[in-house]
């Protein structure tokens, strides 16, 4: 029977929520949380011998140490297969799954599989090297995700041929494979063109990679004369969250006045973010939106002026399209106001 080691975060590992996100790696015998679904899907073909649990913040803040510890734990069990997640749309968890999978594959040469929502930042980190099953954006899709992950994992272990991304449900890895088509290329191309002209759906055989890189804006000549704005995805809002910005999947951003405010305080501001432990930001919101230091620098003439308004949203499970939309709207307002440089802080 195959020995399987499973990697999950503190939340799925039933250690706790954001207040436990700084938990260092630990190992438990047998399956935990989503490991039960994994064990069920494996049936009698494999056994989840151990579960490695690590806090999402701990992993991302101490990548090298965490990775070394985790690899040590994997080594103890000599598994035949390594499974991480699924991480759905959880960014830090996705980065952890991606990093751990790549390292385990490289060090032990065993098959690894993970699962993520396509917009998870972990996808781009590992999709070229690792099979990432495409999942929905929440744990409601756990069973479907785990079923696909196991199906693919067993194929990898048994060295069976892996089908296309569409057939197996993984995120395309950018690998081209030769195959014998039923019809010759010229006919397929004309068929596609005819469909396109008719406005019917068609599937290209050569998808173009998406490169959306923005060239760096030119440097600010003299910051001591510039109007500088603060923007944050860390969810810092006036006390009481007047615009009701959601703690995740935020549907809006807020614009807030800093006139007469020398520093943020727990009495005036708070965080609305649901994706990190709010204790430190609520204790001192300047830890996320550094108004106190910006005011000092303004007084000392190190920056020209701090823009009167700051912009904030909650970057937690925010679809890329929404973030783009907020970014464009904020950029327009800042440009119209004559702002010359922006400091954007993220948690």
């Amino acid at each position, binding site marked *: 029977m195959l020995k399987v080691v499973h990697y999950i975060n503190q939340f799925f590992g039933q250690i706790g929520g954001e207040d436990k996100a700084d938990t260092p790696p630990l190992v438990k015998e047998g399956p935990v949380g989503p490991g039960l679904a994994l064990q069920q899907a494996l049936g009698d073909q494999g056994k989840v011998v151990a579960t490695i649990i690590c806090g999402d*913040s701990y992993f991302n803040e101490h990548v090298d140490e965490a990775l070394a510890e985790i690899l040590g734990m994997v080594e103890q069990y000599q598994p035949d297969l390594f499974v991480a997640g699924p991480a759905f749309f959880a960014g830090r968890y996705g980065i952890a799954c991606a990093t751990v999978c790549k390292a385990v594959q490289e060090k032990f040469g065993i098959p690894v599989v993970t699962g993520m929502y396509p917009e998870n930042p972990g996808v781009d980190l590992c999709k070229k090297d690792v099979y990432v099953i495409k999942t929905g954006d929440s744990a409601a899709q756990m069973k479907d995700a785990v079923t696909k992950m196991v199906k693919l994992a067993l194929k990898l272990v048994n060295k069976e041929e892996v089908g296309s991304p569409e057939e197996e449900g993984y995120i395309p890895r950018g690998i081209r494979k030769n195959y014998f088509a039923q019809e010759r290329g010229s006919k397929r191309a004309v068929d596609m063109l005819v469909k396109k002209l008719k406005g019917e759906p068609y599937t290209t055989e050569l998808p173009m990679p998406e490169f*959306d890189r*923005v060239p*760096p*804006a030119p440097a600010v000549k003299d910051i001591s004369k510039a109007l500088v704005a603060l923007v944050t995805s860390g969810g810092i809002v006036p006390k009481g969250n007047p615009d009701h910005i959601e703690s995740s999947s935020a549907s809006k951003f807020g614009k807030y006045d800093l006139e007469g405010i020398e520093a943020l305080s727990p009495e005036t501001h708070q965080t609305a973010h649901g994706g990190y432990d709010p204790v430190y930001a609520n204790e001192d919101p*300047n*830890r996320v939106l550094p108004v106190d230091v910006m005011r000092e620098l303004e007084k000392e003439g190190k920056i020209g002026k701090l823009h009167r308004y700051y912009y904030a949203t909650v970057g937690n499970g925010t679809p890329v399209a929404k973030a783009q939309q907020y970014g464009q709207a904020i950029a327009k307002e800042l440009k119209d106001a004559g702002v010359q440089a922006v400091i954007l802080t*993220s948690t």
Partner: protein
Amino acid sequence: MVKELERAGLPTVHICTIVPISKTVGANRIVPAVAIPHPLGNPELSKEEEKALRRKIIGRALEALQTDIDTQTVFEWQ
């Protein structure tokens, strides 16, 4: 958001804890932060030390804004 601000021609520095995410997203000027729940602070320090730390990070961010770059650049401060 960082990318849209830069696309509009606004030099933008991204202060963030998870540098790989910032790189994936496409930020150009990146300054690493302290920790996820307190990117520009450290509750283990005294108030004065913490503010000094915050000034150091912002100082680096201001340098980044005044530096011409061709490609994604991480401005370390530690």
